[in-house]
């Protein structure tokens, strides 16, 4: 982003990490541009935390090269890398005050005390904790501890700031608030940040870029919109937002587009590399539009099997004629909901429908 010829903030070249016989990361390649916030997203055990710890230097790569701003750091220890990290548990030193915690990194790199205190206090003020200097971590609330951890990390002005599921120990209401604060801070300070989470909503809300991990490999890498609207695999489609994956038949291709047969409907969609014949279609639950009545030439016939009222919306499970399995539908209309057993006409909103390329 900044400076055309600048090397990326972080670059992985064919990095593999093995623990004994288990491969935690399989020949991964990517680079992160400076000033962006990239999220690593995936189920537990997918390798996302391994990547974070490899960047930090808390683990050593079994193979491959890791570069930070163009410098090979593969063999450097954590202390020698210009990276800092906000831990899931915050990892505040319990025997030190808030100020001592925030000063810690500065003092460890040999800064004079007066200067360190000055910088630390500035950062504490930045996260809204001015005046909490003398408290012990145990005297702070979870949210405050989190901010101390952030202050402690950013006071070193690291080349890369790492977040390891920083919100997972906060209660649901606080999460949204802290998430916004982190995002704002990262934007204002133009920091490069790598953020690990397994919460896809959090990832969509905060990221410039998301890398979805699965089984020690990168499943897909792109902007939140790309991932949501153009998932490259069934796994990504299902992991980011819910999706109904249904088998379809591609009847012909013209340029970028393909004609897709879904029951009695014929859809025209970007083919995204899918070849003629049977393929899979990802349909977001919101993209299935319901109307009373039976199917027609431009609508599929469906029958509601389960209906649930969730306040802001309705959730249905229904059998649709021509589809081999039941689909999951979210409908905004809560005024005149359908009941189990109702016959409905189902149409598709094409914005929520995408062909999933086969591997």
């Amino acid at each position: 982003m900044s400076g055309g010829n600048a090397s990326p903030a972080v670059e992985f070249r064919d990095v593999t990490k093995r623990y004994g016989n288990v491969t935690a990361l399989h020949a991964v390649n990517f680079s992160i541009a400076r000033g962006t916030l990239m999220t690593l997203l995936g189920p537990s055990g997918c390798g996302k935390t391994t990547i974070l710890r490899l960047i930090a230097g808390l683990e050593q790569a079994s193979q491959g090269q890791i570069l930070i701003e163009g410098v090979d750091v593969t063999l450097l220890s954590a202390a020698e890398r210009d990276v800092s990290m906000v831990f899931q548990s915050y990892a505040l030193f319990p025997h030190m005050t808030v100020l001592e915690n925030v000063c810690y990194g500065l003092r460890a790199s040999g800064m004079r005390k007066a200067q360190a205190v000055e910088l630390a206090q500035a950062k504490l003020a930045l996260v809204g904790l001015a005046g909490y200097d003398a408290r012990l971590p145990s005297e702070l609330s979870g949210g405050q501890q989190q901010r101390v951890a952030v202050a402690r990390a950013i006071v070193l002005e690291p080349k890369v700031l790492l977040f390891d599921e920083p919100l997972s120990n906060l209660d649901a209401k606080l999460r949204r608030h802290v998430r916004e604060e982190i995002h704002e801070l990262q934007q204002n300070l133009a920091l490069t940040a790598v953020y690990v989470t397994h919460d896809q909503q959090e990832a969509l809300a905060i990221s410039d870029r998301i890398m979805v991990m699965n089984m020690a490999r990168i499943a897909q890498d792109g902007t939140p919109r790309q991932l949501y609207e153009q998932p490259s695999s069934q796994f990504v489609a299902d992991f980011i937002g819910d999706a109904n994956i249904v088998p379809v038949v591609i009847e012909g291709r013209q340029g970028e587009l393909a004609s897709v047969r879904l029951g009695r409907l014929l859809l025209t969609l970007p083919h995204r590399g899918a070849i003629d014949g049977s393929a899979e279609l990802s349909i977001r639950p919101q993209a299935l539009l319901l109307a009373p009545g039976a199917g027609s030439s431009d609508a599929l016939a469906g029958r509601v099997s389960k209906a649930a009222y969730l306040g802001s919306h309705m959730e249905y499970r229904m059998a649709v004629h021509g589809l081999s399995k039941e689909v999951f539908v979210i409908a905004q209309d809560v005024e005149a909901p359908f009941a189990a057993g109702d016959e409905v006409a189902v149409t598709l909103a094409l914005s929520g429908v995408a062909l999933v390329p086969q591997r």
Partner: protein
Amino acid sequence: MTRFRIVWLAIGWAGLLVLPWYGLDDVVSPPALFAGSPWLLPLALPLLVAVWALFGRTRLRALLAAGAAGLVWLATQGLLIGQHGWAFGWLIALLGPGPRQAAMGWGAVCYALACMMLLAYGLARLGACKGDVFVVGSILLVVGLIALFVFYPVLCILSSAVRDNDGSFAPSLFAEKLFSRSIWGLDCVFGVRSCGVAWNTVAEATLVGLLTTLLGLAFALVALRTRLPMKPLLRALSILPIITPPFVIGLALILLFGRAGVVTVWLGNVFDIPRSRWIYGMPGISIAQVLAFTPIAMMVLFGVLQGVAPSLEEASQTLRASPWYTFRTVTWPLIRPGLANAFLIGFIESMADFANPLVIGGNFTVLSTDIFFAVVGASHDQGRAAVLAIVLLAFTLTAFLAQRFWLGRRSYATVSGKGHTGIPATLPASVRAACYSAIVPWLVLTVAVYGMILVGGFVVSVGRDNTPTLEYFWTAFSIERGVGGWFLSGSAWNSFIVTIEVALIAMPFTALGILTAYLLDRQSFPGRRSFEFLAMMSFAIPGTVIGVAYILAFNVPPVSLTGTGTIIAIAFAFRNMPVGIRAGLANLSQIDRSLDEASLTLGAHSFGTLMRVIVPMLRPAIVTAMTYSFVRAVTAVSAVIFLVTGHYNLATVYIVGRADVGEYGVAIVYSAVLVIFMMMVLILIQVLVGERRIGRRTETPPLEAPGLALVQG
């Protein structure tokens, strides 16, 4: 980081060029390169390579090779060329008598350290241990020290066992000694003479293991499954084996049940029971060891029983099982592995015990005392001592391996953070009665023994003449005013002060154990598991074996330390490493790893992290571990009895000596002083560190094999 290399290079060069190469006390010995020993000259080569490597970023492999080569050559030349020429017979046969050299000195120490650190630097820069020089250096240092002071001596035993007293290789003599009738004879079964010493030892250890386990179980059951308020008593009892020198109990038993003992005399007067020497021998040793080691079994089983979730017993009860049925089908199977563990610990402790058999064994010999007499006795047969040591080592290591591999996977007791709610089942009446009938005699005996220790030294002759006297106390601890002012004229002062001094010198080495625990818990490196295994295994080596090993290994070059206070301090330090390792492991597991990682990512190196984050949080544990190390050092006998000299005598050895010549008064008074002194030290530390924290330490998860570390003897 170049500074690191320059500093260590300077130390290495100083070792070669400036410091005396030979002899730790000999300050006038010339440095290596001017010592007229041409085989020392190649030692300069690795340092030259290291200097060359300083001027290139990619010369790490050369540095690594240089460090390794320096260490290898240092060891090789030291082992090959001894005091009287070549150290091996075949070399003499091949090349004639060969050159001679004395033992290594400070120059060699500095050189070895420098090579080790240069090797560590090379390894770390090539990616070992995440590039952390401090960690690699520490690992090399700890491994090197354990190798030098634990495994090298044990290897010396093996090598000494296969040689005759002139030092030539004699495998047939070894076989003859190993399978000798005096070790393995079964005459007590088939004849009238006594059995071989190996069978004596095994029988004794099995008996003691069984009795301590049963008694320990009885205590644990009464404490946890009845309403009696036993826990304070158990805590008090758990301190006893720590503060009591092991032979003191045997000593007290003699004063109670010996031919002229209080009880014997009383029985003779009242019931006309003739006096006898029944206590000397297996009965006496068994009683003494059961009294001494039951608290250890008790602590183990207390933990095991606590780990049995009450909800399981409640479940059994709701399924209409009677208390007895519940105990038999639920509780008992769950604690069975714990019982086996307690048995093995008692077994190892009994085997390793040296002082009780010495004091009260009479003609009944066990391996540990036999080893002692083979070394100091009239025969002075080091080869026989080595063979006996091998047999003893084989027994204890077998028990250790059984404990570790067979039991390791069979423990059902889960001590999880989440408390199981529920009330444990009460004991069936028959079991309760059995427990009481086991505990009460034990408690009575223990009270009698400790009463005897505290009182026995302050009467003229226990049993015969109970007039109070301070005579023995003054003999041992008098302070007189002489020409030059006050001075300590009592006969015990010298050994008392030396003991405290040496124990204090050895105490900081507990930090080595904590460092080892840190490396084991927080670092991963190739060979970590075997390192852990070997470090733990070294604790199962009986003190007697270590004592023999030390005099075999460190009496002659390349490392000569016998007759110094240093070797006693080293023996204490390495005998006490387990205390540090166990305390460290138990406490480190309670500190979240992310704290270390946070510190590392904030730019503090691992040494800084250790000092600023981990050590401050471990401080109470470190202080406690150091205190225990100190106390254990003061009460130790078996390893150091081989190492003391007239100048460096120790309290325990002095007491054993007094008891040996029948001066029970002084021996008992001195024992009482030691026990009370130790108690005061513990109380003082407890007050300083805070009661709560020490309390928590003693409640660390019980199944991490407490006995392994406690082998003292």
